[in-house]
């Protein structure tokens, strides 16, 4: 019951934030030089035509009314039409979000596969050679520009070795997954570095704690102490960190998808910025914000289930 209350309360907390997010996006869109009607008409704009389109788009109404219309449209997933693709933006997003979400999930899996063993190893071998090598590599990985790493991966594994396709998305799920390997790895590296550092420090702290000494002294096998006591406790905050980084990784898709020519939401945003397709930009920004809020909600809720010590407030 307490948990249910907490979930409900946390979900309700999202609503005001999302409301202000829509205000921010609305204000930003109105700050664009030239109103949406003249942007849409471009060179074709004549004073009469402009007035006509402005009336049709409701731009002659007071700002408050305009905002309410904007809000109503957002809530019914009606983001208007894309200027460039001449289809409803929602249709465009529905197709492309699959790419971005698959990329992010695959990257998250890579992060786990890379960082859990390395972070644990570094923590167990504190200050010895493996620790120093892993820590230094993590530090360098954190300073690596993703777009550059992506290009180098393309050059080596795509152009030279031909293990993976050079950009694109393929036509079936087998090809989709194959074409996501390099982008997901590129996306995963920086976050892995962060997680390795976090996990290493946790392992060092936990291994020194009293309950680990106690577990050993009551005669538990070393393997049991490691798997049940050290690893489990060290992982709690690391998993939270991963969940918090998912938002950042979603944002990283903007650059990764552009480098690897993936037809996701991120590359759509960059294209739309250049073609001044503002209805798409606004929809993508709104979608990213909603995704981040939902991911944070799931993190908080599942954290309260995973760690019974977390107080539900």
């Amino acid at each position: 019951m307490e948990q249910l209350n907490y979930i409900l309360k946390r979900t309700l907390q999202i609503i005001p934030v999302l409301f202000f997010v829509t205000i921010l996006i609305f204000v930003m869109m109105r700050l664009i030089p030239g109103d949406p009607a003249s942007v849409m008409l471009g060179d074709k704009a004549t004073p009469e035509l402009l007035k006509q389109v402005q009336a049709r788009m409701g731009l002659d109404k007071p700002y408050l009314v305009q905002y309410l219309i904007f809000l109503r449209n957002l809530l019914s997933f009606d983001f208007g039409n894309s200027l460039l693709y001449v289809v409803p933006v929602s249709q465009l997003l529905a197709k492309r979000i699959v790419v971005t979400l698959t990329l992010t999930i695959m990257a998250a899996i890579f992060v786990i596969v890379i960082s859990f063993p390395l972070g644990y190893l570094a923590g167990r071998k504190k200050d010895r050679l493996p620790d120093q090598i892993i820590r230094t590599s993590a530090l360098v990985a954190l300073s690596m520009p993703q777009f550059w790493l992506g290009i180098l991966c393309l050059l080596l594994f795509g152009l030279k070795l031909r293990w993976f396709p050079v950009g694109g998305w393929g036509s079936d799920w087998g090809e989709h997954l194959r074409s996501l390997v390099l982008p997901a790895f590129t996306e995963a590296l920086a976050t892995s570095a962060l997680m390795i550092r976090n996990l290493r420090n946790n392992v060092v702290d936990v291994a020194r704690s009293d309950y680990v000494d106690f577990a050993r002294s009551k005669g538990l096998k070393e393997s049991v102490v490691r798997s049940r006591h050290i690893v489990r406790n060290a992982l709690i905050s690391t998993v939270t960190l991963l969940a918090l980084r998912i938002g950042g990784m979603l944002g990283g898709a903007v650059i990764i998808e552009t480098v690897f020519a993936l037809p996701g939401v991120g590359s759509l945003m960059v294209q739309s910025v250049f073609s001044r397709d503002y209805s798409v930009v606004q929809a993508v920004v709104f979608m990213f914000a909603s995704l981040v809020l939902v991911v944070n909600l799931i993190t908080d809720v599942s954290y309260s289930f995973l760690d019974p010590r977390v107080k539900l407030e």
Partner: protein
Amino acid sequence: MDTLDITALPPAALNRKKKISIWKKSPSLNAGVVMVGLVLIFAGLPGLIAAFSPTSQDADHILEAPSLAHPFGTDNFGRDVFARVVHGTRIDLTIGLLATLVPFITGSLIGLIAGYYGKWVDSVLMRILDIFMAFPFIVLVIAIVAILGPGLNNLYIAIWLVGWKDYARLVRSEVMVAKNAEYVQAAKILGFGDLRILLRHILPNVLSVSIVFAAADVVMCMLSGASLSFLGLGVQPPTPEWGAIISEGRAYLSQAWWICAFPGLALVFAGTGFSLLGDGLSDLLRTKGR
């Protein structure tokens, strides 16, 4: 991150003896200082280091592989890539520092005010923070640049508008602890004004988290600036900014890998330098209390 470890610092003065010993003991600090120093020299005196001009074209030496004359090769206009990378240092370093400096100040001040006054001031500021936290950093920056138009100045404005949130959050939580500390209570009893307590007593003691975070943030800002320039939204070619050079070299990737590879290495070098410096600083500040 290491930045969280120094939250429990009492307001102790820096002990000079300890400072010297940590200087010796912290290899990250030493390596960071050396690397950042090198970056500063490259940024300050690019003309002394690079023999060629970063913009002069040479039709006889197009897409040449690295050689003694052109250690990083030449690009599709016959420009010396080494000269372009060296001259780019100043631009990328400036982006990193300037894009960090303003949010460092505004974010810390907002955190200071929110944490100290609490109540509705805190609520309002934190709700604004929530809104900004809902966006992935790079998405909001790109959206703002989309509105203002591509270019270096608008890139700064975008990062300044978005980057303050982490400083505000960090400083606020520090202030909330510090304002109940004895030295602050004592200052209040002595009748000092809020402004004096905030700036003279609390600020110096909570700033260390901000400073350590800023060292890491320089790397973040430098990478963001280069990323946006790579996308064509920041520094515009032919200006030799590292991200822009990589963007230009991308079309020649299969024939001339060196155009893309070396500016990226420069970013990694500068970034690693600042990360090491940040780690060293956090070591230094952590030992300070013991």
